[in-house]
């Protein structure tokens, strides 16, 4: 064995150097994915009376109040956050056809109304929905109106928001399980859109004002 012509660089310490860098990046990495509750704000309030949206009938609004002491009231009654989800679900689906809860005509009835009113777009839309879900599915006109005081803590506010969203998510899950046999999140984009048309996330955040100051 003779001497080599060129001397090779010793790469033995390469691993050590790479390890050092690796550990540095391991330590500095923060893998936090940003997540949260997404919400769409209403456009700025119109100045003129003429631009006001049509009023919603009282039975279709579920008023949820949080006062400055973080107490929750639904339709004027003190409520526990834990029970809020069920309350919202009952309000939206209105299984017993209660006159005080939200309007919940079936898709077929809605289409008939649209035909009577000569609203071609709506007729088209309901026909499409009936094809997918069947005519006996009920669509709610219910809106949850969330009002809070300036002194309400953010933690409580998010807790309530979370309950409201989870109520709607459960309804969507139930419907998609029933129609497609899958959970809402596993559906295709198009099917999700259809389910959303039946159960839109109708949470309205009121114009700020002081309640229970």
């Amino acid at each position, binding site marked *: 064995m003779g001497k080599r012509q060129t001397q090779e660089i010793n*790469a033995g310490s*390469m*691993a050590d150097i*790479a*390890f050092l*860098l*690796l550990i540095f*990046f*391991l330590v*500095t*990495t*923060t*893998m936090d*994915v*940003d*997540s*949260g*509750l*997404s*919400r*769409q*704000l*209403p*456009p*700025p309030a119109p100045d003129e009376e003429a631009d006001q949206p049509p009023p919603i009938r009282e039975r279709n609004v579920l008023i949820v109040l949080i006062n400055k002491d973080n107490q929750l009231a639904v339709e004027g009654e003190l409520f526990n956050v*834990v029970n809020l989800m069920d309350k919202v679900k009952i309000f939206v689906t209105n299984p017993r056809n209660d006159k005080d809860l939200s309007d919940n005509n079936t898709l077929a009835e809605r289409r008939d109304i649209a035909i009577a009113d000569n609203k071609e777009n709506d007729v088209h839309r309901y026909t499409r929905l009936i094809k997918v879900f069947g005519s006996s599915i009920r669509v709610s006109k219910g809106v949850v109106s969330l009002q*809070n*005081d*300036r*002194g*309400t*803590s*953010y*933690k409580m*506010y*998010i*807790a309530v*928001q*979370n309950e409201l*969203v*989870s109520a709607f*998510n459960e309804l969507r899950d139930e419907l998609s399980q029933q129609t497609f046999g899958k959970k809402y999140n596993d559906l295709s984009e198009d099917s999700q859109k259809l389910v959303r048309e039946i159960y839109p996330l109708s949470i309205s*955040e009121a114009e*700020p004002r002081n309640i229970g100051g």
Partner: protein
Amino acid sequence: MQFRKKKAGGTPPISTASLPDIVFMLLFFFMVSTTMRETDLKIKVHVPEATEIKKLEKKSLVSYINVGIPLENFRDIYGTEPRIQLNDKLSDINDISGFIEMERKKHDENEIPKLTTSLKVDEEAKMGIVTDIKQELRKVQALKINYSTRKGVKRE
């Protein structure tokens, strides 16, 4: 030595020549996935928990508004009331519209409707300041918002 003899006859040692390659691969993965913290928070932000959360998809389309109580070493200057921090400096409620304008200028025109504002609000803050921010955002038509939360455990 007995020890040596045995080894010579057994399996050859595993080559460690590819170890640097493996380590480099890991290294590149972490280098790419690392996001260095861009802003130094002068306020304490401990976001509340929620279960029904959605991931924010495109990070480049998100601008952040932080709200919280100033950290201890800044309390002499900024007080103990919750404050707003946009990028690096503590700001006033009136600075938000300017901030949104700035964020919009960084993006294409067709991306503007997709811009999301993430509200990172400390759980101890009051809704008053959040409501003010929301009103301000409505004024400048930045309507997509996200209440930043941690992942919580769903109650049965």
